[in-house]
């Protein structure tokens, strides 16, 4: 996204969101909490998977870890909730470092990495469901938020932060190294790009940002159990939204999160299964028409409107 008009739109939007609680309904706020959560999650997923090409199907692991870190800290240790959020980030970071050291220090195939992450999510879910101290499968009840606005503003800043970070990295030297790795890992290595360091850094960054989101949502729900904390659909939604919007782009995950959340919300008034079916069909339609996701649609439309050259069909093009 370039140009003054685009930046102006973004600034206006952010200002609007900052001031919304003054006149927005409780429903609007809770809807936005959900949207902002997914913007943050999809963006964080994209920070790793979009830049390195390693699709993780279990990034929701850090969401669950963050939620439980918060639960343990607030309910069992009775510490201040803010500590819980910081702890969530710390726990996720450590987990990401450990997992990264095991998985990312080899040239593991992308498909296997994806499934291993999925498996780790399931393993942790089962293990947690058997720990009595955290309530096993019944989970924990958490003292609720005094006001939903805390969740709203936290997630708003997290979403903005993730998106801004994504933009900064993309336009930095580090980002250039990431693009090189995406294009050709071995060629990048022999040019001096430390692929392991890059992958690890993005993986840890991604996890560290997802953890606090999980913590805040745990507080927002005022309840957690292994099945909602480590719910596979959190992992899947992150993936779908990013790919839908356009992997590897800055605004792709944002668009994907907004639109898919919106569609889900709009459809949920009818029978829940019905809206999932329609949602599935819509996703199919879009991906089959434009596999590059919404950002590709945007780019194509943009060229058509401005009459520029057709976008180059190259691997990993922004």
């Amino acid at each position, binding site marked *: 996204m370039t140009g003054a008009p685009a930046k102006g739109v973004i600034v206006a939007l952010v200002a609007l969101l900052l001031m919304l609680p003054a006149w927005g309904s409780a429903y609007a706020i809770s809807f936005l909490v959900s949207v902002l959560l997914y913007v943050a999650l999809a963006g964080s997923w994209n920070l790793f998977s979009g830049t390195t090409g390693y699709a993780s199907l279990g990034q929701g692991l850090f969401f669950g870890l963050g939620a439980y870190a918060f639960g343990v800290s607030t309910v069992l240790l009775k510490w201040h909730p803010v500590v819980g959020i910081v702890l969530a980030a710390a726990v996720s970071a450590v987990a990401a470092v450990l997992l990264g050291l095991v998985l990312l220090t080899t040239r593991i195939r992308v498909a296997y990495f994806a499934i291993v992450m999925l498996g780790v999510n399931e393993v942790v879910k089962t293990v947690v469901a058997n720990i009595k101290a955290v309530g096993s499968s019944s989970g924990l009840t958490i003292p609720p938020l005094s006001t939903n606005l805390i969740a709203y503003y936290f997630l708003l800043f997290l979403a903005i932060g993730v998106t801004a970070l994504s933009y900064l990295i993309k336009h930095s*030297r580090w980002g*250039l*190294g990431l*693009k*090189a790795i*995406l*294009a*050709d890992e*071995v*060629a*990048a*290595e*022999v*040019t*001096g*790009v*430390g*692929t*392991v360091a890059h992958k690890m850094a993005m993986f840890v960054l991604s996890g560290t940002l997802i953890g606090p989101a999980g913590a805040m949502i745990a507080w927002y729900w005022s309840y957690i159990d292994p099945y909602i904390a480590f719910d596979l659909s959190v992992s899947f939604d992150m993936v779908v939204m990013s790919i839908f919007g356009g992997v590897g782009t800055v605004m792709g995950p944002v668009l994907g999160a907004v639109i898919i959340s919106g569609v889900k919300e709009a459809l949920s008034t009818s029978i829940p299964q019905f809206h999932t079916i329609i949602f599935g069909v819509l996703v199919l339609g879009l991906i089959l028409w434009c596999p590059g996701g919404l950002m590709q649609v945007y780019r194509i439309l943009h060229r058509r409107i401005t009459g520029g050259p057709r976008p*180059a*069909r*190259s*691997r*990993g*093009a922004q």
Partner: protein
Amino acid sequence: MSGDAVLEVQGLDVHFGGVQALRNLSFTIAPGKIIGVMGPNGAGKTTLFNLVTGVYRPSAGRIVFGGRPLQGLSPARIARAGIGRTFQSGRPFANLTALENVLVGLYYGADVRRAGATDAKRRGQEVLDFVGLGKLADRPVASLNLTERKIVELARALATRPRMLLLDEPLAGFNPLELEPAIRIVRRIRDELGITVMWIEHIMTVLMETCEHLIVLHHGEKLAEGTPGEIAADAAVGDAYFGKKGATKLG
């Protein structure tokens, strides 16, 4: 350890799932020269390059670069230590422009951390100018033809400020008119930049004319080593390439 050798390889062995790709390979590379690496297909030439650049690990043997052992170092570290490399099929980063390719080399390989963006761009442009692609700086690599891509890859390797450059069939895919300019670039790399070059090539006439020293591999072993004159007269080499009947003149 020989005094001023740039690269020294001793007793190098490597296996791949039961197949021995290289066997007891030893040689020394003197600095500032263009050394050709020859051999029929499957002789192990590219494997050798992969070992030196750290992409593969040897099963046995030593690789010493400028007095420093390379075993166990990651390819990125080796690149930063001063070994640049191009690939047979030409592997520039297809999602970047020519200049961006060179910048990756500059930022990561040459460790140009303190240079600002404008300074780096200027240096990158210089490298592209050196190889004659100055005008293509902002062109996406995906839009370039094979020859241009391979030269971009060469520029990228040069940008890492190597002491030694490993070129794997750089001329493969070039049409006859493009050969001379490319060969001139390699000569200039040796003469003006003082970089030692190891050059795998199938076009033997080129190697015979440009290299000061040749190493011939066959079935993973060193078959012969010497000046182009010596190699041309070597019957065993002719044998390996052409069989007993055609073993007359090379080059």
